[in-house]
């Protein structure tokens, strides 16, 4: 009896250790991507870092309940989207925060663009285009922005986005279409 209990305890420890190792591997693999999505969505480095930590903390607590129905990345992204949604819902000063970060974003977004092998003029044009896209993204609704970023920054498939956001593929497609139309209009206006 005692031996059985000890054996069970050992098995549990081993299972926990394996789970911890697996989770550590998941963190290592996906942390930067989750952070990138939260940064592009919130445009606030500190907030993105905090939400990323919260995301992995929540994921760790619920790791045992992860059944593998979707990829770990999709599951993590869903947690991140919900955390972000909760954060903005709880913020009373959301409007002012958005106004502040929007101002920063529009001024700085283009500055991170790698120069590549472009001429100075091409770089200037590219920066301007990035500013325009940033402006539109900042003005999108929270849901549209998430979908737009998951598609065009994280390059996720529509099905994955649908699973991460809890929406149907059709809805995802509709939101994407509206967002892209606004980007196109912005680019067209400035030409």
């Amino acid at each position, binding site marked *: 009896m005692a031996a059985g209990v000890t054996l069970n305890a050992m098995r549990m420890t081993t299972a926990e250790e394996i789970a911890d190792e697996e989770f550590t591997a998941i963190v290592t693999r996906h942390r930067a991507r989750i952070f990138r999505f939260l940064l592009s969505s919130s445009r606030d*480095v500190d907030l993105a870092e905090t939400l990323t930590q919260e995301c992995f903390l929540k994921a760790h607590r619920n790791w045992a309940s992860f059944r593998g129905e979707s990829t770990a990345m999709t599951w993590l992204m869903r947690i991140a989207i919900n955390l972000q949604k909760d954060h903005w819902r709880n913020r009373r000063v959301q409007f002012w925060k958005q106004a502040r970060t929007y101002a920063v974003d529009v001024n700085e977004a283009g500055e991170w*663009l790698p120069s590549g092998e472009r001429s100075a003029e091409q770089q200037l044009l590219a920066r301007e*285009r990035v500013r325009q896209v940033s402006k539109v993204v900042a003005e999108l609704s929270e849901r549209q922005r998430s979908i737009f970023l998951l598609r065009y920054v994280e390059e996720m498939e529509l099905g994955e986005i649908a699973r991460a956001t809890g929406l149907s593929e059709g809805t995802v497609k509709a939101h994407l279409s509206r967002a892209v139309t606004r980007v196109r209009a912005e*680019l067209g206006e400035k030409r």
Partner: protein
Amino acid sequence: MSLMDEENGVDGVGDSAGELDEALRDYRLSVHAWSEAAYGRARTAAAAAAPNWRLAAGWALGCVLIAGGASAGVWGHHRQEMKAAAARVAEHERLAAEQRMQLAREEDEDLLARVDSDVAREVPSALEPLAQLMAADESRYERNQKKSSSSSF
């Protein structure tokens, strides 16, 4: 086929679509670069949190010590000033007392002088007229004596 073309095939041709694709690609590159920079910075900042905390604590302790030293200095200075003020008051009181004593002495001296002058004033003697008469008689007698002696020669 681009990401754009997959779900937005309607306008996905021509210059506009090309420009849109390029804009979205640049935006993605920009966000990736920004995120990489911020991700590195965020972790560096987290690692540097402890020294910053220690630095802040050091500053706070330093400020407390400086404030303590300054207040001790101020208190010492205040005590010295209090002592100096007390000494000044004592000196002033001492001088005032001396003046009062000097005044009292002078008044006493005046009084004594007046008493002396009153006591020492020469009062005309009641026998003075007689004394004058006697003196006049004596001088007359002497003159007569001188005359008689001169005639006998």
